[in-house]
């Protein structure tokens, strides 16, 4: 079971590179925002998988929940910020 979670975490981290590339390249700022919000989701999953690896999901699930909340609020705030810039113009 441990190796299973380790392999899943490593595969997830490898896929993360795609989103980092999108954040670096992304033609518009919304591509970067998409990359950041997807990375937040992936970090939540990775936290739970690491919790499964150490057999301490009971501890890691709280961290994952806090991270998910913060990442959601962060991406919502960024999207609203760009809309506000439009309204003030």
């Amino acid at each position, binding site marked *: 079971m441990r190796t299973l979670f380790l392999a899943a975490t490593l595969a997830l981290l490898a896929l993360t590179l795609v*989103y980092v590339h999108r954040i670096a390249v992304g033609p518009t700022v919304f591509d970067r925002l998409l990359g950041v919000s997807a990375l937040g*989701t992936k970090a939540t999953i990775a936290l739970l998988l690491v919790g499964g690896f150490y057999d301490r*999901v009971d501890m890691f699930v709280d961290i994952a929940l806090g991270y998910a909340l913060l990442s959601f609020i962060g991406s*919502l705030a960024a999207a609203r910020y760009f*809309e506000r810039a439009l309204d003030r113009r």
Partner: protein
Amino acid sequence: MSVAVGLLLLAGLFFQAVAALGVVRMPDVYTRLHAVSKVETLSVMLTLGAVALSTGLGLTATKVLLVALFLFLANPTSTHAITRAALRLGVRPWQRHPKDAA
């Protein structure tokens, strides 16, 4: 039990790979958001289902499923906010033949 966890993890990682493919290959921000939000939400359900199954019944599994429920609601919401901001700020949707359409 272990087999079911492995299958769920594998399915979740497969859909993560599909979402990454969409991020690489899609032509503009709207199609990329389309690929990421839906496919990644499904992947979250499968992966967190695997983690919840591995812990067995109890408080921890309930919390993991609560995280899954939160992401199930939050992921489409933030995607909608980003899409709305992009549309209102005038990012043009991709067209195959822009000159013919104009």
